[in-house]
Each structure stands twice: as structure tokens, then as C-alpha cells.
């Protein structure tokens, strides 16, 4: 690249860089710095210490959660971390499981009015995220749509209590919130597949199912991976959904961070947990991409 076009490129990128620096880099740096401080009451002690991190790994009596032992003096963050990852994973799998067939339908079965189908798909997202979460509260609640419906049909006498305020409700709500976002990247990678590749596969002996497995699925991987990360990364740290529909059992790591910052007056510990969470997610995503050979896929399919 010549220096002139490099300059043009950089100046085009600079607004994005500035926004990123102000809204992403600065808060993260502030968070890192804060995680080395301590707080008592409203007072922040700015002497450098690793105490917050030490506390997260300090051995102790610990607790058992779903058969997993956490031998830590303060096991809550670790338990919530594992729980959040597991819940996000389930929600992500559900999202991909629902979004993939939708994207496939849009890309391969819809020939006319594609734009209209897209708009239909996004209609639920014209309302705010908060309202959508609340509506699940109404659907799943004690006197909610499902319970009153089942009662009206005479299938149950007393309302079901296991619908709301538990991890299941959180996962359902998270999955619903993110489906439309994950349809698009999958749709794009499916739409990009040259249809003569499918004809060639049939011509070389593939049945429809074989062709799907050998051509369509591998070629959709870039979009499917993008959708997976797009859902998994933000849902791990979500705290709005657990707060509204999770109840005590549905708490996630984000809820703990929020509590530490706002209620328990221990922002430095909250910062340390956030940093650890970020690193763990980054490591997991890296591991995932390495396992599926993302670089090879990207080089070949682009």
C-alpha cells in the first residue's frame, strides 16, 4: 500500500478509532486500574494491591454446585462464572438451532419478497430490549399467559411455578432476544454460496442430504461462527435478563458485578471479576476458533 492510500485509510478509520478509544479502551483501562485498588464504605484506597484477585482464588471450605466442588473461601464468583458460561452456551445453541433453519429458508426457499421477509423477521425488535424481557415475564409468570391458558384448558389446577424466576426462564429470554441478530450472518454466508456448487455436488453423486453436509454446511461456517460469537459473548455478561426473569436461582455473573458496584460498595472487587471474566471469555473464544480451525476456513472461504 502506498503511503497516500495508507493515510486515506487511516483518516477514514480515525472517527471509529476515536469512538472506540473513548467508549471501549478508556473504560477498560479504568476498570483494570480500579481492580488494583480497595474500597471500604465510600472511600477508595488507591494503593496498589492484588488482594482482589487473590480473593477470587483463595482456597477455603468452598461449596458444591451441581456436583462440581469449588474449594474456595469466596466461591460465589467462580460458581456464577461457570453457571453463566453454561447458561449462555445453552442459549447460544438454542439460538443457532432456531436461527439456522430460518436463515436457510430465507436463503434457499424464498425467491421473491426477500426484503419483506427480513422486515417481518425484525418486527419483534422494533420494541425495546427491556419490553421484550418484560413480555416474557408476562408469558411465563404465575398469572401469565401460559399458566392461565393451561388452566383455562383445564390441564392444570394450580399455576405452574417452575416457569419463571429460574435459569430456564433466563435462557429462554436470552435466546429469544438474540435470534434475529444471528439469522443475518448465517443468512449472508448461505446466500453467498454459488448455486452451481450445489449442482456440481449433485452431478458428482451427492444426494440432497450428503450435499448439505459436504457443501452447504461447511460453506456456511464463517457466518455460523460469527453468529455463535455474536450471541455467546454478550449473553455471558448480561444482567438485565437475570434480574427481571431469573429470580434468586437465575443470577448470572453480571448480576454479581452490578451488585458489587452499586449495592455492596466494592467496585474494585467488581472490576477484578469483570477483568477475569473478560480474560476467560477471550480464552474460550480463542480456544473455540482454534479447535474448529477458523484460520483455515477463513483463508479458503473468505
Amino acid at each position, binding site marked *: 500500500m502506498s503511503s497516500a492510500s495508507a493515510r486515506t485509510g487511516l483518516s477514514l478509520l480515525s472517527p471509529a478509532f476515536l469512538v472506540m478509544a473513548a467508549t471501549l479502551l478508556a473504560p477498560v483501562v479504568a476498570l483494570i486500574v480500579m481492580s488494583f485498588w480497595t474500597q471500604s464504605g465510600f472511600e477508595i484506597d488507591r494503593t496498589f494491591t492484588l488482594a482482589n484477585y487473590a480473593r477470587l482464588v483463595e482456597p477455603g471450605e468452598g461449596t458444591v454446585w451441581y456436583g462440581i466442588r469449588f474449594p474456595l473461601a469466596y466461591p460465589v464468583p467462580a460458581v456464577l462464572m461457570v453457571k453463566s458460561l453454561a447458561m449462555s452456551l445453552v442459549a447460544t445453541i438454542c439460538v443457532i438451532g432456531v436461527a439456522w433453519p430460518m436463515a436457510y429458508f430465507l436463503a434457499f426457499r424464498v425467491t421473491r419478497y426477500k426484503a419483506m421477509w427480513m422486515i417481518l423477521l425484525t418486527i419483534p425488535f422494533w420494541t425495546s430490549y427491556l419490553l421484550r424481557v418484560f413480555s416474557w415475564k408476562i408469558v411465563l409468570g404465575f398469572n401469565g399467559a401460559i399458566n392461565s391458558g393451561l388452566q383455562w384448558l383445564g390441564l392444570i389446577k394450580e399455576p405452574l411455578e417452575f416457569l419463571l424466576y429460574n435459569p430456564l426462564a433466563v435462557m429462554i429470554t436470552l435466546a429469544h432476544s438474540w435470534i434475529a441478530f444471528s439469522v443475518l450472518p448465517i443468512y449472508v454466508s448461505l446466500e453467498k454460496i*454459488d448455486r452451481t456448487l450445489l449442482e456440481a455436488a449433485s452431478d458428482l*453423486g451427492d444426494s440432497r442430504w450428503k450435499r448439505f453436509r459436504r457443501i452447504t454446511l461447511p460453506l456456511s461456517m464463517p457466518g455460523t461462527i460469527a453468529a455463535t460469537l455474536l450471541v455467546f459473548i454478550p449473553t455471558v455478561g448480561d444482567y438485565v435478563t437475570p434480574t427481571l426473569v431469573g429470580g434468586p436461582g437465575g443470577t448470572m455473573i453480571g448480576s454479581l458485578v452490578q451488585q458489587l458496584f452499586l449495592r455492596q460498595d466494592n467496585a474494585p472487587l467488581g472490576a477484578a471479576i469483570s477483568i477475569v471474566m473478560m480474560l476467560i471469555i477471550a480464552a474460550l473464544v480463542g480456544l473455540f476458533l482454534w479447535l474448529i480451525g477458523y484460520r483455515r*476456513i477463513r483463508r479458503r472461504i*473468505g
Partner: protein
Amino acid sequence: MDDPIIRIDGVQKSFGSFTALNDIRFDIQRGEFFSLLGASGCGKTTLLRILAGIEQPTHGQLMIDGKPMAGVPANRRPTNMVFQSYAIFPHLTVRENIGYGLVYQNLTKAEARARTDEAIELVKLTGLDDRSAHQLSGGQRQRVALARALVCRPKVLLLDEPLSALDKKLREEMQQELRSLQRTVGITFVFVTHDQEEALTLSDRIAVMSGGRVLQIDTPEGLYERPNCLEVAEFVGTMNLFPATVQRMDGGQVIADGGALGTLVGRSPDRPVAPGEAILIAVRPEKIELSASGTTGPNRVAGRVASLSYLGDRSHFLVAVDGLAAPVAVYRSNSERATAAAGTEVWLSWSETDALVLHR
């Protein structure tokens, strides 16, 4: 000889109200290099896709190797196709692409490997096994597509304009290779092209198509020397046309009145003509003699050289003739050293055996 590899019997194909193919019927013999030639939109690719099983005919029957193909999907036909865009699978290497169809051939791993090696060698891609599609040039992609289809040992290889994306030099090279490859493997090739020169160079027989119909099926020589209609005559090579009216038939000859052009004599066509009928006398440019002076008589026309182009081995003249809208094209070999400058008056003449009679 009546055991054709392909029998097309009254095939018709409609897309909505558009008829892409209309009552196609002909046979393709075993081991033939057969071309479907026509301008774009003539239905040649649709016919090829029907042979492959990618499209289904609206009406009519198709037999391949003696078996009716109705209801037989593409993956169970003894045909393989080389696509115009080559359709190389981008997520697979050259070797994986070529071996793609072999999983259905009941081979052991070692046999499949040997077959793939053989195919890679056949199309001269040795050493490129691990490349992926985007690391290949156009010519290499074409070879991968060819090897991928041939490795399955089809009874018929279908080729959809496989050379049209290559530059001229590479295209001529590939034509030679394709022809010798076909002789080596002995498989029937059905080759779709819009390039008449390519079709003439490669084929044993050619079907000229237009508007969803087959106009003529013949050898390259037959098509060039004996086109059966005006469309074929104009599509294959260059043709000079002289309008005339039939006066009488004399043995194998048609004697016609060319008006200002005098008497024109041509070879009788397969379909008879009647006196008084308006016809065209058609003469190829290289069959016309050019001379500075001439005697009167049949098939002699006076004109003036409008332009000439020197092409090394030969020269092309355009001769303006009174009473004709288009100038007459005359190709003369430069070994004759007989030349005429632009603007000079010349006489054009040709033998009556080189003059065809075409219906108007």
C-alpha cells in the same frame, strides 16, 4: 450403429410461457465428440442440463446408454459435467475436489488415491494437490473441473462452454488438449459452445441450435460446405448471398435470374425449388475468384474493391457490387500474389458447384 449412447426423443422444455426447447430429437453415438452450437439463449445449455438431470424436460423422452432417464436424478446418472464457472468447491483442496465423486464408486482408500493421482497426472496438475481453489489460475481451475468429472469415469462427459473464460492462447491450447484427452479416454463428450470456430475444430459432429430448435446436425465439413438453411450458413463462417429467382432446373443445377447480376447457377438443394421461387445463391468468400478482366457468362459479377485487409497469409477484400446492399467478401490466399488495390474495378467469378441454393 443403432446403439446410441444418448437418444433425445421429442424433448421440450418450457419455463412459464417461454419455450426454451422445442421438439428436440437426435442421437449421439458412442465415443463421439458432439457439440451443441448456437448463440446465447438458443437452448443449448438447457439441453445440456437436461442431459445432466439438473433440469427435467417438460415433455419428451431421454435415454442414456439404453436406459430411460425420466425420474433419474443427476446424482444417479452416468454423466458428469464441467460447469462454465467450473464450480470448484472453495473449502476443499485440488485433491479433495478431484476425489469428490469417488466416495460413491465403491473403491478402497488406496484405489481412490490411485485414481485421483492418475486424474491429476492426466490433466497435468501434478504438485498442486494441496492448493485451494483461490490459489489456482483460470486454466488450472478448468483442469480441476475436468479431472473431477473424468475421475468418476462417466459414460458421457458434458461440457458447458468450458473454454469461454480463458484467454485466446490458453483456449487454443486447451482445445488441443481436450481433443486428445477425448481420444485417450474414449468417453462421449457433449460440448456446448457459442464459438463456431471452436466447434469446427473440436467436434466429430455439431448440432446447430437456434430459438430452441435444432437447425442442422452434421460434420464440421458438412455444416460449412452444405448448410441447409440461411441461419446455419450465416452462423457458421461468412457467407455471401445473392438474391435470385429460379428459372429452371437442369440436372443437378438450378439456373436462376439474378437481375442486374446476370444468370446465376447453383447446386440443387435437398429440398426442391420450383420455377419462379425467390432464392438466395450462397457462396463462401474463399470460393470466389478475383480477376482484373473477365468474360460474361453465368456466375460472373462486376464490382469495385471497396476495401482490403492484409492478414499475412491471406487478404480479405470487400467488393461493392451494384444491386447488392452488402459488399461481397472475398478471401484470397497471398500465395497467389494476385492483388487488387482499393477502388479498382474487378470481376468476381465462382464455380457452380461452389454455389449453394438457399430458401429465402
